[in-house]
């Protein structure tokens, strides 16, 4: 057992290098401008993702950062995060497409004013999607968050299964077409900067010649915003309450942390980012399709959090970018390389199994993740409240009892 002061010092820890963050931000933001140079490099050039893929990777990573608020900070296992993604994407569909062509309403939209349907500026839609999803998170959270651990996991899983099915079957609620059923809602309006068209900024990203570039830049800024909120939240009073709940719920309640309210906020805030990312991704894809929302997405996002390090922002960013890269391009590239080498194996077919091996291996050999969060690592190493008093597998190793005294 380490002494208490030791432990406190390790939790407080030293600060990271301050030059690293601005460097990464600048490098990230400028990616589209040196992407082609990277791709022309020998050997690694084939593995460099296109800007187009980067947009998707960033959207998924943003969701992972949101999920990290729920799983990493508050320690609530959420297996139905895809529901929030779906709510976000469909909000974009409702407020920025021709879905409701009974009415025509435009508000700074990037499409011509005579198109039927509700067309609100996508910037506003992102906010609305976040807020609606936040509300959905509260709705789902209120009845279920009093359940602990794996019960909560299974309820979130249930919602993650129900929401996509409702979306798929939602083309006829008493004759009202809410979600356009299995076809999904398409096209969804593009993000654009209509007012500033005069100074060369595109009015509509989707039709702009630099479509991927513009979507990338905005996605990157959104991710920055998410990470910033996430860091600030972690260090706030609310964030400390989350971590207290993660470490020991009973003790946290005894110290006056309101469990329900704190947990609901983690759920709601995690949902918010999922909704924004979902809406943005829907705009990039140009539609919201029910086939996109399945359980594997929830697990995929969870894998990112676990791979990177539960609760660690740097870790989740790394885990998110690595896994979504593999999903988007990496596995296919590796597959074609294997084909060239004469090995007949398609990694894309077995992607779920590969993620399965990854998370099992991570849990067994490096449970704190690639870039562990200090406090979480200590929890894993020194145990938390639910470590058994008497360890039946390794007798004597974790108890104060000295085996030689027996």
């Amino acid at each position, binding site marked *: 057992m380490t002494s208490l002061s030791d432990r406190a010092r390790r939790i407080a820890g030293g600060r990271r290098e301050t030059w690293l963050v601005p460097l990464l931000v600048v490098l990230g933001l400028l990616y589209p401008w040196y992407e082609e140079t990277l791709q022309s490099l020998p050997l690694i050039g084939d593995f460099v993702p296109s800007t187009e893929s980067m947009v998707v990777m960033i959207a998924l990573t943003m969701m992972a950062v949101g999920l990290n608020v729920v799983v990493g900070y508050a320690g609530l296992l959420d297996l139905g995060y895809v529901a929030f993604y779906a709510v976000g994407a469909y909000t974009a569909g409702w407020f920025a497409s021709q879905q409701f062509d009974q009415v025509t309403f435009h508000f700074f939209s990037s499409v011509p004013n005579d198109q039927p349907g509700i067309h609100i500026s996508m910037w506003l839609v992102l906010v609305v999607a976040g807020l609606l999803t936040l509300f959905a998170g*509260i709705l789902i959270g209120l009845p279920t968050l009093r359940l602990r651990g*794996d*019960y909560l996991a299974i309820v979130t899983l249930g919602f993650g299964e*129900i929401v996509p099915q409702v979306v798929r079957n939602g083309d006829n609620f008493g004759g009202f077409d809410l979600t356009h059923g299995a076809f999904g809602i398409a096209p969804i309006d593009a993000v654009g900067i209509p007012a500033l068209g005069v100074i060369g900024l595109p009015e509509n990203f989707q039709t702009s010649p630099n479509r991927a570039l513009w979507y990338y830049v905005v996605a990157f800024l959104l991710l920055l915003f998410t990470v910033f909120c996430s860091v600030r939240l972690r260090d706030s009073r609310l964030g400390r309450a989350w971590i207290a709940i993660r470490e020991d719920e009973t003790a946290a309640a005894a110290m006056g942390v309101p469990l329900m309210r704190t947990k*609901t906020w983690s759920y709601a805030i995690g949902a918010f980012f999922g909704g924004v990312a979902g809406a943005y991704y829907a705009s990039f894809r140009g539609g919201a399709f029910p086939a996109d929302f399945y359980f594997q997405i929830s*697990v995929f996002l969870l894998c990112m959090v676990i791979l990177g390090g539960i609760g660690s922002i740097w870790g989740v960013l790394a885990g998110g970018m690595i896994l979504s890269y593999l999903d988007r391009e990496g596995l296919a590239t590796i597959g074609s390389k294997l084909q060239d080498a004469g090995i007949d194996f398609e990694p894309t077919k077995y992607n779920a*199994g590969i993620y399965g091996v990854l998370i*099992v291996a991570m849990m067994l050999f490096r449970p704190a993740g690639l870039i562990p969060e200090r406090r979480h690592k200590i929890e894993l190493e020194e145990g938390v409240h639910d470590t058994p008093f*008497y360890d*039946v597998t390794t007798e004597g190793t974790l108890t104060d009892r000295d085996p030689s005294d027996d």
Partner: protein
Amino acid sequence: MNETANSILRILRSPKVVNGIGLGFVGVIVVWLVVNFVKGPEYFANVALDGLTRGSIYGVVALGYTLVYGILQLINFAHGDVFALSGLVASTLLLSVFDISPTSSNLAVAGAIAVTLAITVPLFAIINGSIERVAYRPLRNAPRLAPLITAVGMSFIVSNVALGLYGVDYESGSDLIPQGDAFTIGEIQFTWKLVTALVIIVPTLIVLSWFVSSTRQGKAMRAVAQDTEASAMVGINVNRTISVTFFIAGSLAAVAGLVFLLEFQVRYDTGFELGLIAFTAAVLGGIGNLSGAVLGALLIGFIQSFTEGLLWYAPGGDWTRSIVFGILIAVLVFRPEGLLGERTPEGA
């Protein structure tokens, strides 16, 4: 905002409201069932028998979940995929190795089914035991989230093994069973499928309940489920008992896999959804409670057949998943301990 939310919550949580809403739900369902029954009693009974077939298979899978949960408090997500893989292996044995076809004599089919069971049951007991050994035992003392996450991972691995071995095609042995009815009472048809399912499943349940209630090892299982540390102190080998539990769960998965293959069709991803349904059944009955799992599974089987089969205002197959998970959520919210379970701090 929080104050309002809290006061709304307080009202929602009061036992009167909770029971009222719960009874309201139950009332609507009862009325719906009664109207359907009055409109066509024979049809209703046939749909119910279909539900019995499904429910009995769900019951065997649900027992696998509830046994493991009872002893480790772990939702073994891989269980459903082990079940599907066992069905696929059984299809290889039946259709390729023993070369049984719809024209084979009934005796040959029955013999082949018996031999297949004799092979798959021990095989999947060992496979399930190995999963425990590799993925769950090293995490025995980790935070409880850790084994749950590896369980999800193992689920993906097992289903991808099935995908690698069998591809994306469905395998089915449903034409091996004689079509038509074994016997009828009035217009109620007892099909051979139902009879086959019950002939395999009922003895399995009897053997299981004998094992758990009357053998020394069964007693050890119950003891470990109640209190791991205390049973270790009185000399029960905890790790061996947990392994035995996984062996039994694997055998049950193999039995269910074969029956499912004979009734429906199996594919590499069949186990995922069926596993979730079976887990819901286990929760509905009271997780950790063996008779509860069977009861819950029968109820879910009926619910599924009723929603898909009844004629008057039935939601239809599109909504099955939502209804099953809606029930799961309602149970966890209104009665976390399940129908037969005892209230635990974890569920409350």
